[in-house]
């Protein structure tokens, strides 16, 4: 399932489409410490976090995740959204807490 399909089905808010219509989700990683994410997230994971700054976008690109999902009603700042658009990173806002966000994705993508 692509990141965009998933966001639509889950009722999440797509802030930046990026490559989200081309890339599929093969796992989920939850975490906010950026080095932890770079060490442990896998390529093609959906990354769920509450870190909505420009460095998270850089980390999303490096870790090669399918999309960055901001949970807990946290929003990504404008500068970060702009960078995400430039880099083709799909950014999604979820109104749900982290666990419920992950659970919903796992169910929809049958992970």
């Amino acid at each position, binding site marked *: 399932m692509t990141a965009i399909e998933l966001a639509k089905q889950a009722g999440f808010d797509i802030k930046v489409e990026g490559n989200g219509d081309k890339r599929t989700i093969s796992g989920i990683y939850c975490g*906010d*410490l*950026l*080095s*932890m994410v*770079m*060490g442990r997230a896998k*390529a093609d994971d959906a990354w769920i*976090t509450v*870190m909505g*700054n*420009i*460095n*998270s976008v*850089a*980390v999303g*690109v*490096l*870790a*090669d995740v399918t999309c960055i999902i901001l949970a807990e009603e946290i929003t990504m700042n404008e*500068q970060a959204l702009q960078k995400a658009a430039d880099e083709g990173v799909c950014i999604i806002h979820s109104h749900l807490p982290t666990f419920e966000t992950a659970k919903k994705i796992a169910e929809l993508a049958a992970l």
Partner: protein
Amino acid sequence: MDNILKLKYDVDGDDFTRAGEASASVKKTLKKMGVPADIIRKAAIALYEGEINMVIHADGGEIEVDISSNKIIMILKDKGKGIENIELAMQEGYSTAPDEVRSLGFGAGMGLPNMKKYSDEMRIESTLNIGTTVYMTVCIS
């Protein structure tokens, strides 16, 4: 013989939003050269961690990246405060990152362990109050 492509970058000591320019540029270059995605991912993450460390813990510095057909050599040199105990700094979870960067998501104490994990060879030379040089090699293929 092997053609070596040499890339050089200056890392600004207090610009967080620009940190990552070297790794982004190296990533693009490797992609153009047709290097496999998993190798690019390793090299780019290792370089980004080193780049961020230069911004947070030193006052910026210089990066040299040498790319040949079978390996990527990355040398990160700063004139910062140096690392007193390298063995301790290499441990997962050890961090002296200040609060203002922790609030941005840094300070897990995983940067140096990631650099070791994602490079095939890594060496640190550091002298207190003189600076730190990190050498990393990522093999291609």
